[in-house]
C-alpha cells in the first residue's frame, strides 16, 4: 500500500464510505430483483394450478 500522508484518514474514509454505499446499493437492487422474481413465479404457478383445476 502506498503512503497516503497526513490526510490518510480522509482518503480512507472517502473510499470506505464509497465501498459501503455501493455494496449496499448492489445488495438492495439484487435482493429486490430476487424477491420480485420469486413472487411472480409463485403467482404464475398458482394461476396455472387454478386453470388446471378449472379445466
Amino acid at each position, binding site marked *: *500500500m*502506498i*503512503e*497516503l*500522508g497526513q*490526510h*490518510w484518514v*480522509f*482518503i480512507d*474514509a*472517502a*473510499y470506505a*464510505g*464509497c465501498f459501503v*454505499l*455501493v455494496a449496499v*446499493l*448492489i445488495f438492495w*437492487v*439484487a435482493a*429486490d*430483483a430476487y424477491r*420480485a*422474481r420469486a*413472487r*411472480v413465479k409463485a*403467482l*404464475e404457478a*398458482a*394461476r396455472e394450478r*387454478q386453470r388446471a383445476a378449472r379445466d
Partner: protein
Amino acid sequence: MKDLALLEDNAPKPGLWTQIAHPGLFLGWSRHLIVPLAVITAALAAWGLYLSFWGSPPDYQMGDTVRIMYVHVPAAWLSQFCYAVMFASAIGTLVWRHPMADVSQKAAAPLGAAFTLLALFTGSLWGRPTWGTFWEWDGRMTSTLVLLFIYLGIIALWRAFDDQLKAARFVSVVTLVGAINIPVIKFSVDWWQTLHQPASVIRLDGPTIAPEILIPLLVMTAAFSMLFLTLHLVRMRTEVIKRRIRSLELAAARAAAGGAL
C-alpha cells in the same frame, strides 16, 4: 403443429422500437446483458482502483488528497447523468407515452439519490483537508444538496400513488421542472464566488489535468457509469416484473371475488 411452426417462422420479426417498448420482449433481451455489464464494471473498477492508489502520483498542491477526486468526480457526474436519464424518460412518458419510459424514470431515481449522497459525502471529506471545512454554502454544494432533495421528493411521489401510470405523468412534470437545477450545478462555479474550481475536464480548449491524473479519473468514471447502467437495467427489469405481480394479484383477487359470489 407443422403449420403453426411454419407460421411462426414466417411471422414478421419485431422491430427495434417494439423490442425496446414491449415489456415482455425487454425482459427477454435485457437478460443477456446483465452478466457482461457486471463483468465490465468489475474489471474497470479493479483497474481504476489500481490506478487510483498505485498508478498515479500525488498532486503537486493537494498531495495524496487528490485521490479522493477519483471517487468524488464520478459520483458527482452520475448524480447529474441519472437526472439526465430521468429527464429524457420524462419526455418519453409525456410526449410518446413510451411504455418503458416511466419504468426507466422510476428505476433511475434511487440510483441518482445514492450517487448524489456519495458525491456530497466524498466532497465534504475532500473539502476538509483542502479548504479547511467539511461544508460551505456555496453555489455548487448547495445546488447539489437541492438535487438530493429533488431525488428524494421524486422517490416519495412514486410511492404516493397506487396507479403507477398516473404517477408517471405527475412525476414527469416534476422531473422536467426540477431539471432547471442541473445547469445551475454545472455553471454555479462560473456564476458565483465559490471554493470549487471551474471545469477542468470537459472544456472547449481540452482538459487542464495532467494525463497521469486524468487517466485514473476517466477509468473510474467509466467504472461508475457501467455500474449505473448495470443497476439501472436490473432495476428496470424488476419494475416490469413488479407490474406483472400487481396485475396477477389483481386478477387473483378478481377470481377470488367471483368465486365467492
